């Protein structure tokens, strides 16, 4: 008896929220019209890919007992910088590198402010969030920056896989379920960062840092360097997400992704990543991102007014956190 409850708890800890997602997904498929259609599935996956990419590194920030509010601004600014450089140089590669470099630079600054200057993560990244958002407006002149190089659009819009999924009842044509590049990029990130957190000293040291910074330092973990790396990676991945998004939108948009940072943090916490640091798994992030995406998608399909969607998302987050606390208290 004891053994089975132990096993159940272990399973619940590892994959509990994935089960919740599976239930939610099944429910939506059964009761929400058009939910389980190829076109909608495609859109759902595409819509979670941006949050998913950034959530991978946000997992590390949260596991280290911090978070990064500047990611939404970095997404916008990286897209703009990539667009401007591409238009100026005619080189996709240079544009992409410029966007990534911007992300890495912002992340590095965040890391240095937090690790070396001792500014807390809330203030440091709140400041860079606004600075980078402002810079995005300044360099773009407040307008969207159209991109003229068609090859760049392949990055975010290439169909990698076409799976026949029935026929259209009206036209009689075959309908395909398509996997598009951002989804694959997101998937690669899930696997890659999942490996990093579970199977490397980088991941385990991050969790130790979040669990008790002083104990980690006294155990020989280079905590300052680790913090700088964690935030640099976060900036870099926000840059990746920004470039992919710019490719999908065929332009750099200064207004895009406002509030994205909160959506990412919500998704992670919803999945079970601790805001106090020290506890986090990639499966939690995957579950959180998918649950958030599915909820939004289902509400859209049900024509729930976007004003109400905000309220609903907030409530869901509260319920998830309350649920998690309850789980911990029983432990």
């Amino acid at each position: 008896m004891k053994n089975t409850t132990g096993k159940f708890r272990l399973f619940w800890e590892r994959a509990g929220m994935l089960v919740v997602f599976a239930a939610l997904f099944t429910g939506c498929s059964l009761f929400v019209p058009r939910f389980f259609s190829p076109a909608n599935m495609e859109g759902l996956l595409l819509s979670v890919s941006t949050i998913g990419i950034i959530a991978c590194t946000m997992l590390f920030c949260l596991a280290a007992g911090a978070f990064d509010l500047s990611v939404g601004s970095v997404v916008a600014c990286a897209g703009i910088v990539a667009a401007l450089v591409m238009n100026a140089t005619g080189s996709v590669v240079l544009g992409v590198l410029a966007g990534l470099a911007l992300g890495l630079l912002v992340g590095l600054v965040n890391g240095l402010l937090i690790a070396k200057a001792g500014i807390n993560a809330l203030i440091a990244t709140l400041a860079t969030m606004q600075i980078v958002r402002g810079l995005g407006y300044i360099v773009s002149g407040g307008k969207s920056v159209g991109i003229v190089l068609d090859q760049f659009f392949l990055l975010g819009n290439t169909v990698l896989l076409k799976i026949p999924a029935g026929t259209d009842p009206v036209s009689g044509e075959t309908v395909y379920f398509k996997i598009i590049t951002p989804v694959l990029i997101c998937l690669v990130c899930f696997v890659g960062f999942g490996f990093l957190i579970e199977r490397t000293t980088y991941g385990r040291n991050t969790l130790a840092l979040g669990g008790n910074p002083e104990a980690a330092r006294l155990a020989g973990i280079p905590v300052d360097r680790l913090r700088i790396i964690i935030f640099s990676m976060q900036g870099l991945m926000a840059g990746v997400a920004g470039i992919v998004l710019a490719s999908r939108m065929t332009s750099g948009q200064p207004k895009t992704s406002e509030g994205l940072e909160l959506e990412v943090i919500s998704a992670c916490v919803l999945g079970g990543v601790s805001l106090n640091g020290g506890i986090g798994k990639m499966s939690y992030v995957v579950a959180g991102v998918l649950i958030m995406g599915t909820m939004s998608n289902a509400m859209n399909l049900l024509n729930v007014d976007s004003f109400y969607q905000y309220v609903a998302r907030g409530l869901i987050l509260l319920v998830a956190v309350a649920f998690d606390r309850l789980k911990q208290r029983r432990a």
Partner: protein
Amino acid sequence: MPTRLVFDGVTKEFPGVRALDDVSFAVEGGQVHALMGENGAGKSTLLKILSGAYTPTGGTVAIDGALQVFSGTAAAITAGVAVIYQELFLVPEMTVAENLYLGHLPARGGVVNRRQLHDDARRQLAWIGEEIDPATKVGHLPIAQRQLVEIAKALSRGARVIAFDEPTSSLSAREVERLFAVIRDLRARGHVVLYVTHRMDEVFAVCDAVTVLRDGRHIRTFSSMVGLTVDDIIRSMVGRELSNVFNYAPRPVGGPALELAGLTGPGVTAPVSLAVAEGEIVGLFGLVGAGRSELLRLIYGAERRTGGTVRIAGRPAAIATPRDAIGAGLVFCPEDRKRDGIVPVRSVEENINLSARRLHAAGGFVLNRAWERANAEKHVAALAIKTASLETQIVFLSGGNQQKVILARWLSEDVKVILLDEPTRGIDVGAKSEIYAIIQQLAGRGVGVLLVSSELPEVLGLADRVLVMRGGALSGEFPRADATEAGVLRAALPVAS
């Protein structure tokens, strides 16, 4: 009429563990009742039930015959229970008076009546015979006075059952006497005083009865101290005879393991030069505040030193950070395990492998999971670490087992020198003797041990040589043969000016 506290069949089960098993005993008011037992014996759990933090899964608690069902800590306070923990629950940024009446400040229309607040506070403090300015911020008071404020706070809330959880661990001898006077005063008023401690001298100094728990069960209640000896209590705590907890045996010593020359830095007032040989245990004794912990932290690179050199195994070691120290074979077990030692939310296995895993990971990066599991299993077995599993979060282990996990962390390294800062603080007798054995095994392997302790018997019992610190400087050195309690203590006590 004195208060009476009765535990009847109290049981508390956690998933997989029965922390308390059918514990029944009565505590009479007007007596100081010691609660003793090894770590993991259930003392903390019992206190948490008393304070309303835990709900028992079976049995009852009654105060003056009235059954108490504490639905939370607030309910326990209302029922007249106060638990004074090692870590105090005062707000350092608020004044003494504000802390005393936190939650029920005298106010009219939401505006605090400061004069009444201070008058009430002064009266309350005078009641326990303490003169503290109620307007002082609690953060500015020494620990001992904060503790008295906490007691005054409990009394201001009408506490009749007052439990102390190792209240003297950070107090000086004089402060302990002050506390005992207050405790005796509580006794004279007929309150129930429950006193949890590991220190035998205190039990005999202040207690009138002793209850011993072991493995969550009530073993015995000695209702009188008459004719009772330390051995009687220890026997029931560990359930076996303890002839000599130290089992000291001389060891051969080798070349120099650690050499300090002219070390200076914060907390150290005069340059420190000392040496520890391979296989030697050097005890570093001193009163609280003598600079012993500060010295260890300077050696380890946890604080920046301002001068001096460190040599390990005869070679100069450039130690600027703990990481450098570990790389050179110098490791450190901090005094405050919870704050500086363990990563509470991570597993036993992870806490063991925290440092050494880098040596076994491919490229220092990809974990060698087979090694990690094997290493953790090896040390859990070798050090007899009591844990439900390797995946258990370390915070659920008792203090002694947490300390063993930290020792295991360093045994996983290629250690040449180990710095131990109060390695048995807050640990029960049984686990203490196990840790003493581990320390001696380490020395037997040729590791140089520098052991800081404020327990004189521990230093005298274990060390091959005793160093004494006073006021931030070395003040004495005694070979084992010449180290007497009186001599060492004399070197440690402040010189009368």
